[in-house]
């Protein structure tokens, strides 16, 4: 999940590293890579990780529909209840989990998220999947990989590798939730830590 800093946090520099056309191209490429890797779309299930992974999953599914002419099942997978930091943070609102009717047993599940950072969200997602069924394989597509992994997890499909410092914030804006498509890197001026 991408972080959302309070608007009040003064930002010395906020630069847009991907605009709407870059994001569109990246998603188109990811779509084709998913189809190349999996030969056809018959066993695929696309699951977005709320919040911003869900519209991205919907866009990838729509592109697969266009390219393959099939109705691609997609849904969302909330990982809140599987987080490893629940004890350290206040209770969070749950997001919606919506698994397509075919289920995930025997499917190739492609998890979609906006930013891959520590890898902890994806670890939680793997646990969540485990309770929902037994996929044949799980693959990971992310719009941005910003590095700083804390677990042995990597993405199969990456929109953009973005080397960042820990002090920086990576913010993904999507038209569905933010009114625009953009990936923005912001550096805090007040010496505060970036994303944890």
């Amino acid at each position, binding site marked *: *999940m*991408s*972080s*959302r*800093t*309070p608007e009040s946090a003064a930002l010395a520099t906020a630069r847009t590293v991907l605009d709407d056309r870059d994001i569109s191209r990246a998603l188109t490429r990811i779509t084709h890579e998913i189809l190349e890797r999996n030969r056809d779309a018959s066993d695929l299930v696309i699951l977005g*990780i709320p919040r911003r992974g869900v519209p991205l999953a919907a866009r990838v599914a729509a592109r697969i529909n266009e390219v393959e002419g099939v109705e691609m099942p997609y849904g969302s997978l*909330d990982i809140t*209840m*599987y987080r490893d*930091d*629940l*004890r*350290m*943070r*206040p*209770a*969070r*609102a*749950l*997001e*919606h*989990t919506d698994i397509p009717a075919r289920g995930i047993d025997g499917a190739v599940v492609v998890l979609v*998220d*906006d*930013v*891959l*950072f*520590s*890898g*902890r*969200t*994806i670890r939680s997602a793997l*646990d969540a999947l485990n*309770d*929902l*069924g037994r996929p044949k394989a799980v693959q990971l597509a*992310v719009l941005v990989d*910003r590095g700083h992994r804390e677990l042995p997890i990597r993405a199969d499909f990456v929109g953009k590798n973005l080397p960042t410092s820990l002090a920086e914030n*990576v913010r993904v804006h999507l038209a569905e939730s933010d009114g625009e498509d953009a990936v923005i890197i912001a550096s805090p001026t007040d010496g505060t830590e970036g*994303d*944890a």
Partner: protein
Amino acid sequence: MMRHLLSAGDLSRDDATAVLDTAQEMLSIASRPIKKLPTLRGRTVVNLFFEDSTRTRISFEAAAKRLSADVINFSAKGSSVSKGESLKDTALTLQAMGADAVVVRHHGSGAPHRLANAAWIDGAIVNAGDGTHEHPTQALLDAFTMRQHLGPLDGANITIVGDVLHSRVARSNALLLETLGANVTLVAPPTLLPVGVASWPVDTEYDLDAALEKADGVMMLRVQRERMNAAFFPSAREYSRRYGLDARRMARLPEHAIVMHPGPMNRGMEITADVADSDRSVIVEQVTNGVAVRMAVLYLLLSGERPAEPTEEPQA
């Protein structure tokens, strides 16, 4: 969310909505092949029941276990309490055992409040029914059930019928439904309405038939048999005739109206069997929803520390 859940009146509209929304997600867990989440692993929930209540206890137990918490059932009957142990010493014992949450059912009104405010125990206190005072999780599961069938409760007309005087369910429902914007009408014989009912945010009515035609939901309260001989009403039969819900009365309800009962039912007394088993009855759903709502309450009270200030959401 608050630290404890003692009264339905303590919940703001946002708090109540957060519980109901969380419960909506929890409800989907029941349809999964593996009905368990790791969320409260390593947390200990104690069910401290000074009164018999199998239904509420197993509902809380199922909720805690589905969230992977460890559950300890403490029944006062046959325990140290029957040997004269005080509430304080019981609380100190639970504290020493490391209880993260204590679900309390007590015959004394205010016992959960005492536990929460006496600093004997660090854990969250959940009121599972205290005397004739409150039963907030019952009100939450009732609101959840109504919301499922009626949509948002703003402006909904809910009629609560029966022994309001001794009913913690009625009191909690009146408070929560008012918070959620519903109009509540209490229907009871004058002897079974509390003295201060004029200060409640409700309308009162002695005639059940007059209160049915505009009701979106009717909640029948259990007539407690121990009240039968206490001269609150002349006879069980008369009560049933005047305040019982039968098929004839149910037919006067609007097409979309639902019939609720907190259970356990006295079939043939406050509700006839054909009404209890009819399509409009959501009494069994209330039980299912009870587990989801209690999961939501335990999750919101037990997951995480309460920070001094809002923390930033981390990234993946």
